[in-house]
């Protein structure tokens, strides 16, 4: 067991867990931040995507021993106060989710995409989102939502 200090959504959390415990289990089962989902456990599905210093990462593949307390972790809960980030609003407008289980990860990946590339082409969207699985088959609406979000962000700035 080891004690860790983590900066999650601009709040400092202390946890005491085994060193190889992944960020995913710490978020979900120790801290109750359950918006980040478990899907495969081996970085194949993207359901657990969070941002670490702004980069999209798979929380299931990040042991806590690899973190230092200066790294900033952002989860879906920290993306916006009231679920009203432009990407979240676009997701609602496109009526993208079905079962919804993968959508936190999809949204975190999409936010990272638009951070890097504010005006992506369809092909760029598909390539960037390719690691995020959706079994309900909402991909077409996710592409649409990302295009809508890009528009929203562009008109805002």
């Amino acid at each position, binding site marked *: 067991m080891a004690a860790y200090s983590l900066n999650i959504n601009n709040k400092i959390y202390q946890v005491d*867990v*085994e060193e*190889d*415990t992944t960020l995913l*289990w710490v978020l*979900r*089962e*120790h801290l*109750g931040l*359950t*918006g*980040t*989902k*478990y*899907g*495969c*456990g*081996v970085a*194949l*599905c993207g*359901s657990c995507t969070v941002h670490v210093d702004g980069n999209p990462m798979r929380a299931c593949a990040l042991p806590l021993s690899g973190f230092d307390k200066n790294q900033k972790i952002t*989860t*879906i*809960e920290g*993306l*916006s106060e*009231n*679920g009203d980030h432009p990407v*979240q609003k676009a*997701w*609602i407008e496109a*009526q*993208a*989710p*079905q*079962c*919804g*289980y*993968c*959508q*936190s990860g999809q*949204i975190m990946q999409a936010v990272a995409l638009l951070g890097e590339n504010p005006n992506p082409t369809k092909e760029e*969207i*598909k*390539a960037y*989102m*390719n*690691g*995020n*699985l*959706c*079994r*309900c*088959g*909402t*991909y*077409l*609406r*996710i*592409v649409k939502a990302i295009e809508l979000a890009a528009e929203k962000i562009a008109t805002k700035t």
Partner: protein
Amino acid sequence: MDLNNKAVSRREFLKTSGGVALFIGISGLLPQMISCKNNKGVQKILEKHELTAWVKISEDGQVTIYNPAAEMGQGSMTSLPAIFAEEMDADWSMVNVAFSPQESEIYGSDKWSANNKVMLTAGSMITYGYYSIMRQAGAQARYILMHSAAEHWKVPIGDLNTAPGEVINERDNKRIGYGDLVPYLTMPVSLPEFSEAELKDPKNYRFIGVDRPRVDIPEKVAGTAKFAIDIQLPDMLYGVLERGTIHGARATLHNESEILGLKGVLKLVPFDYGIGIIAETLEQALAAKKLLKITWGEAGATGFNSQECYEAYGKIASGKSAGKVITNEGDIENALKSASKSFSIDYKNDYVYHAQMEPLNVVAQVGADGKSAEVWVGTQQGFDSKLGIPDYLGIPAENVKIHLQYLGGGFGRRSMTDFVLEGTGLAREVAPRPVKLIWTREDDVSYGAYRPLTLQRLRASADASGKITGFSHCIVGDGGNLVASGIGIDYYDIPNKYAEWREVSEGIRLKHWRSVGHGPNKFAIECMIDEIATYFKQDPADLRRILLAKSPRALATLEKAISMSDWYSSSPDNRSKGIAFLERSGTLSTGVCEISVDISTGKISVHHFWSASDAGIIIQPDNVKAQMEGGILMGIGSVLKEQITIVNGQVQQSNFNDYEILRMTDIPDSVETALIESREPPRGVGESGTPLVACAIANAFLKLTGKPLRHLPFTPERVLNALNS
């Protein structure tokens, strides 16, 4: 109907905390209580369901409508309450939606089986199953509100009408909000049953056929929607199971004391087919699971090889002993004998896995005395609305409480209760502490319950002009209706029809998988039609137009799909279109896809998919389109990639690396859905898209290359083999 039963006094009806629960409806509580002669029984129901019925109204005007169905992405949380709100004339901005309790005698539908009310979200049945119930109950809620206003104002009820969220006196234009009526609510002496003519005129619909944003989407986008896996309870423990890769194999554990000595491990729980571990934390449970030293016994599947069984299945299809005859119209043998041209083709499909994104899980808690249980679960419900727990624990059904959560995908897998009983079994060992049981993805894949593997022998006869005179279908496979659903071709005008199922049993766990037998069966049927059309140099759409001539609703979907896909114009170079028609869950659909194939790699790409469906009355059009899009995309993945294989009884796949599902780079450029206008009752759409895909792709491939694809999935290797054949 006599409501002057003392047991159901007005006060009891209106008694709730913080609101008024109207116990209403043909399938609601009221008629049941009226028919219940046992006053104690009535009291019991009232106590148990103090706040439960179809609707609750608060004095501030908030209306809560109860959804009796599971929400697994198909939109029940919006569509069923919308039907109720339509007849109640509710103000949607004041409507909240909650899951109803899992009490089938109150919230069940009798559309599954007559005289037996069932809560079951499967078979794309819930809109059909609850359409009348929600309309009646909504209309009766409105009647009670109007009746109460009439009493309050001392005017005839005939003078009253409603506007969204309020009752209006049409003589003096006096208005009162539904919330403001709460203190004056009175039960009418009898509740009318509303005939079709007395229900709302479709011209005035504000909900049915009108898109409204889904109520569950904001919380799913915010990350706050609760799935069972998200449940946290005080003092909760974690459970995992190790199960064999041969289904049903018995476990012999060799290092029990080592495992029990691991930090955090509290208990080992043997199951018939595995070993359960209960630990303080999930990571401790998972670490212990990896260290288990188990030898596995033999089971039914031992020795079975899923890629080698087709030869034996072919022999069974050729054998003289008939199986279970499903259809027998006309004289098929005579039709085949006297045909000017006959066809016999075998189609095959490998096992496929559900791959719902939320791995199976449950949170279960058993009372300290072992006599009660509560579970928090994403379930498609079932014929036993208590999910088998009463029998499992040997306790009365009323001692079991099911807390339904959102489902992270169902697709048929969550209509099974294996995981629920496992979690309950673990919780019993540490009662009264709750246990969260999680299946890893590897567990979920390798101990899945798959859509059955089948071989299908289709035979057909035609006269010299190419008219199909006979059609015969023999399925060899395991699972009864799991393999037989969708074998019917009622809509096709063919005089001699025959269908049968020949059973084999391999010991592999099987379950309904989105559209069940329709996927493989419609693949075989619709490909056969195209092979016949190709032989006679007929256009496959033209042949279907002849076959569907006596089914106008079906024909309308064909014509619509032909026009929207511009069927008769040629595709761009190296592309081709394929067509298929089918019925699923009462919905008629024609699909057209346009594909290309990379002849060096064998990879098929789907560029466009058009579908036209007649699903009866459409409640939420955009949601129906979402279901068709999703069903088609899931279909594309399953047809091009998905395959569970068994070697010597052992499942060979374990996660998304070796069981690949559709990813975003493989999606079509467009999926277009057209809905035919209809006043027929609404039918299911959740499973209508998926089975269109295999046949439409294979038919496009046949047109493009002249080669048939007859074995699902169409992996690059199989595509290359077909191209080189």
